[in-house]
């Protein structure tokens, strides 16, 4: 399939082209970057929501309930469910979808499972681009379920407008772990499994922690109770998520975050491409190997050599009028 046809299919909201593009993104197919380039201008419309929290806390169950609520409100939903890949085999058992199958025949819902494929941080390296593809396909809301999170699985904050941190009653010791990392990224706290004993205490514990938070801005994360099995509390959760988007818009934070994200992303892409081109330019050159030997033998130092090689590369680049182009 030609990239242009793929892109047109995605923009028309068709499932198969979208599904196919996602696979290409995950597999780092060069055509995927071309498609993303064409789709970029059509993104930025969806409200992106991250759901994170310890394993088994009920994330997938809540995502399903929230999806039902959004559909009742007439909004279309994309879901990206991330599960860990095995570090040994590279394979993955993607089980989040089990709880989401009730929506599988709804034309207004698209569900996709992803393995982390070795990436740490709670999501896959490709998750951000996958979300973008679904955004371009016109879904109103995109929910990203991260892998069961500890303290370092906080990358969701780079993708989501609104981060929901799910916790459960009891589990007193995980509050320590959570405090360090994922507590700080929450826009909304949910104490799920409110039917279990200790739910109210958990709410007070989280609130007490928020009382101590020095860095809190104008938005104090609300702490909500839900029951994933019955759906109790879910409409209120969806209301709060909407409220958070209104807050982001009215406070100017949405624009600010958007700028910051574009800056970071541009920075990353430039850094990656510059480095790649520099190394391509140097690879296999005898003077490069010679310089490395000089450093190893202490006849030269890596700081000066790096500076010299970069300077030479930049001069060459400006003479040739820019690097080779591959559109990635």
């Amino acid at each position, binding site marked *: 399939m030609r990239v242009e046809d793929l892109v047109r299919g995605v923009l028309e909201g068709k499932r198969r082209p979208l599904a196919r593009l996602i696979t290409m993104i995950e597999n780092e197919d060069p055509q995927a970057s071309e498609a993303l380039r064409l789709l970029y201008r059509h993104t930025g419309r969806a409200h992106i929501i991250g759901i994170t929290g310890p394993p088994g806390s009920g994330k997938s169950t809540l995502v399903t309930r929230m999806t039902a609520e959004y559909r009742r409100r007439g909004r279309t939903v994309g879901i990206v469910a991330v599960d860990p890949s095995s570090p040994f085999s590279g394979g993955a058992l993607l089980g989040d979808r089990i709880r989401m199958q009730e929506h599988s*025949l709804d034309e207004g819902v698209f569900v996709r499972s992803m393995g982390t494929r070795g990436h740490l941080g709670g999501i896959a390296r490709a998750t951000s681009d996958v979300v973008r593809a679904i955004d371009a396909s016109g879904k109103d809301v995109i929910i990203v379920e991260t892998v069961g999170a500890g303290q370092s699985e906080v990358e969701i904050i780079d993708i989501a407008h609104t981060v929901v941190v799910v916790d459960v009653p009891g589990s007193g010791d995980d509050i320590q772990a959570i405090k360090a990392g994922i507590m700080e990224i929450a826009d909304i706290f949910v104490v799920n499994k409110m039917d279990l004993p200790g739910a109210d205490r958990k709410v007070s514990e989280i609130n007490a922690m928020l009382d101590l938070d020095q860095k809190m801005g104008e938005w104090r994360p609300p702490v909500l109770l839900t029951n994933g099995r019955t759906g109790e509390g879910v409409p209120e959760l969806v209301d709060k998520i909407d409220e958070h988007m209104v807050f982001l818009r009215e406070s100017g934070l949405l624009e600010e975050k958007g700028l910051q994200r574009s800056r970071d992303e541009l920075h990353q892409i430039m850094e990656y491409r510059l480095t790649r081109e520099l190394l391509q330019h140097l690879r296999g050159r005898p003077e490069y190997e010679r310089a490395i030997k000089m450093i190893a033998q202490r006849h030269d130092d890596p700081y000066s050599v790096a500076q010299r090689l970069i300077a030479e590369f930049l001069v060459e680049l400006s003479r040739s009028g820019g690097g080779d182009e591959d559109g990635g």
Partner: protein
Amino acid sequence: MSPSRKIRVLIAKPGLDGHDRGAKVVARALRDAGMEVIYTGLRQTPEMIVRAAIDESVDVIGLSILSGAHMALFPRVMELLRKEGADDILVIGGGIIPEDDIPELKKHGIAEIFGPGTPLDEIVDYIRKHVKV
């Protein structure tokens, strides 16, 4: 193909059959062989299975059934796949399926059937051999 290409497999249990041990054993074996396995749980209709296969862009659908309803459900899955133009997906099955039914199922496009006691390696090898990567 790029080096990060992974074989994606949907393991599905169509119909009302509650025997899920075999499906889970196979799912784990395929994961341990480096594949990405999407397990959709019990009581799936053929429509749900086909939709999941398309959304997830799988290379393989593995149907597991021990209840005896395979002659109704397997061909229905194949029919829907053809209707969606997704019949390039490799479809295999397993569970309690009498020898005599296998030729008929293959006529409908099921590539292979694996019965009780099949070594898991055999299933892994079959998929590796038959998915065009």
